[in-house]
């Protein structure tokens, strides 16, 4: 199947029309839904309309860089006139009155939205099993999870239901599903992509990014997604480099750091082999490897599970059944309205995190937990800064294991949380990071994580791209979806 880059070029060259392309994808999506459940909403009519408009634009010579290219949006990006659910009963029937900035930008670039992608409820999860709309299944083996929270986006791209999909990453929610589904996923630097219209989970950690089948494709989408937004106070006012133009730089002299604290027993042996093989390829390409120590990094997970729940407990307070969202039947009084609307609207994991957050912010605990976690965050940030004085990128495993069976880790939240052990650090420090496929273990994909310093998206995409010129893991797709 063609890459997004090739599709964009083919459309521009009028080798096929967007309408034809969209029709083909819509058919694949429909056929896949019973198996994969990747989509929550499929906006077929709007997609065909937009495709027709794109074809007209292309014919008139005024199409944008993504004119006519189909994409999917994770269902936490607000899409005007289209249901936006966050995978939750709370927003089951919420039709957003406005477009997220990311949605508007990609629309302006000419992309055609095929639908809204399934996800862990309110982005809280690492397996896409907490969605109110049912779990998403891994296209490589449908008894297995695709990862989360952007499970729908990853599964859709892996199964070639869309050439690319937007997603978000708060603790690893783009990278981990990318690894588990054998595709490429990029989380940019904090502040690189606008959060306006990206329904908030943890405001100081959330970032919007992309899932695609290659670094090259991801670069193209990211270039259009990124940029300053005056509607987002945390958006950084800095020019967006042309990530596509920077892809081909040779890797000679690139210094790769291996995080000492993560080369430990936590990592599955076979997984580790895939990582080492990938590192060997990078060395062949001219990069040098060295070990670096980030002694506070093992505290990422505890720090995250204070900061993220704290912020989410406050961000989700607006879901109270008053102005939008789920309202319980026949509320007896105001308190009953709140308690039952929220009790019914939110699933267990969301409630768990809201309560954790409420606890760590409450009187008497704020210093011991919230402030402490933010201080540890400072230390982790300093560790990364020091490391990047010696190396250009940090490379390692994205996830401790490959995909696991649906239901295998739902009994104990902590077991689930530990899936993010390698990814969370980049969120705490706001660093750009991606996962690229680097092999298989037991028939299931393994991902290689590449982390860079702030605003080094071009660098990490470059490393991934050069790796993908040498290898073909990223071209593999599940037979059933070939």
């Amino acid at each position, binding site marked *: 199947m063609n890459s997004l880059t090739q599709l964009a070029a083919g459309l521009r060259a009028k080798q096929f029309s967007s309408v034809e392309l969209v029709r083909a994808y819509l058919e694949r999506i429909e056929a896949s839904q019973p198996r994969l459940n990747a989509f929550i909403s499929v906006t077929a009519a709007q997609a065909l309309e937009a495709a027709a408009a794109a074809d007209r634009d292309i014919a008139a010579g005024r199409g944008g860089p993504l004119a006519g290219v189909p994409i999917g949006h994770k269902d936490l990006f607000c899409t005007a006139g289209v249901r936006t659910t966050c995978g939750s009963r709370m927003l089951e*029937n*919420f*039709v957003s*009155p406005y477009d997220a900035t990311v949605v508007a930008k990609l629309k302006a670039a000419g992309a055609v939205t095929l639908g809204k992608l399934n996800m862990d409820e309110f982005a809280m999860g690492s397996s896409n099993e907490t969605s109110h709309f049912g779990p998403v299944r891994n296209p490589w083996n449908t008894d297995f999870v695709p990862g989360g929270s952007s499970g729908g986006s990853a599964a859709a791209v892996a199964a070639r239901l869309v050439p690319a999909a937007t997603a978000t990453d708060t603790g690893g929610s783009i990278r981990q599903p990318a690894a588990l589904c054998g595709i490429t996923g990029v989380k940019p630097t*904090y*502040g690189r992509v606008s959060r306006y219209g990206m329904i908030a989970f943890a405001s*100081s950690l959330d970032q919007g990014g992309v899932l695609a089948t290659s670094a090259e494709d991801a670069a193209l989408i990211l270039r259009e997604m990124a940029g300053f937004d*005056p509607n987002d106070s*945390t958006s950084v*006012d800095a020019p967006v480099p042309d990530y596509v133009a920077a892809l081909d730089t040779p890797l000679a002299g690139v210094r790769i750091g291996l995080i000492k604290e993560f080369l430990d027993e936590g990592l599955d042996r076979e997984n580790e082999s895939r990582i080492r093989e990938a590192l060997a390829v990078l060395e062949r390409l001219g990069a040098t490897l060295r070990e670096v120590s980030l002694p*506070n990094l093992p*505290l990422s997970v*505890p*720090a995250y*599970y*204070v900061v993220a729940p704290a912020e989410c*407990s406050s961000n989700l*307070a607006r879901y*109270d*059944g*008053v*102005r*939008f*969202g789920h*309202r319980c039947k026949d*509320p*007896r*009084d*105001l*308190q009953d*309205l*709140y*308690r*039952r609307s*929220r*009790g*019914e609207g939110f699933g267990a994991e969301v*409630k*768990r995190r*809201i*309560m*954790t957050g*409420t*606890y760590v912010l*409450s009187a008497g605990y704020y210093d011991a*937990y919230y*402030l*402490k*976690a933010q*201080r*540890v*965050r*400072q*230390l982790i*940030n300093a560790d990364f800064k020091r490391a990047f004085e010696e190396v250009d990128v940090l490379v390692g495993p994205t996830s401790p294991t490959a995909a696991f069976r649906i239901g295998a880790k739902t009994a*104990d939240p*902590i077991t689930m*949380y530990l899936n993010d052990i390698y990814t969370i650090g980049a969120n*705490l420090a*706001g660093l750009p990071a991606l996962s690229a496929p680097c092999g298989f273990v037991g028939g299931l994909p393994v991902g290689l994580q590449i982390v860079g310093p702030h605003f080094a998206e071009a660098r990490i995409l470059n490393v991934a791209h050069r790796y993908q010129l040498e290898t073909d893991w990223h071209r593999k797709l599940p037979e059933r979806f070939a």
Partner: protein
Amino acid sequence: MSLTRAQIESIAHLARLQLEPAEIPVYQESLSRIIDLVGQLDRADTAGVAPMAHPLPGLTQRLRPDAVTEEDRHELYQANAPQVAAGLYLVPKVIE
């Protein structure tokens, strides 16, 4: 560190979450485990370390000009409202 039933109930109340009686011990268990996990933070020596609220240090708040840029779109916005009358959002009567 184990959270008590009373603590769970108090937290659930602050967060306005209705919990069934049977759910309380379940949340007690999982929240206690999470707090244990989080307790690992005590291992770090953070004396003299400033808390980091934003991942990109040194950035400061942008200011926007004082201009009216929004218009009345309450009908569109209220399309999602559970209960509206005469432009007002309705909730069960609140006695102050």
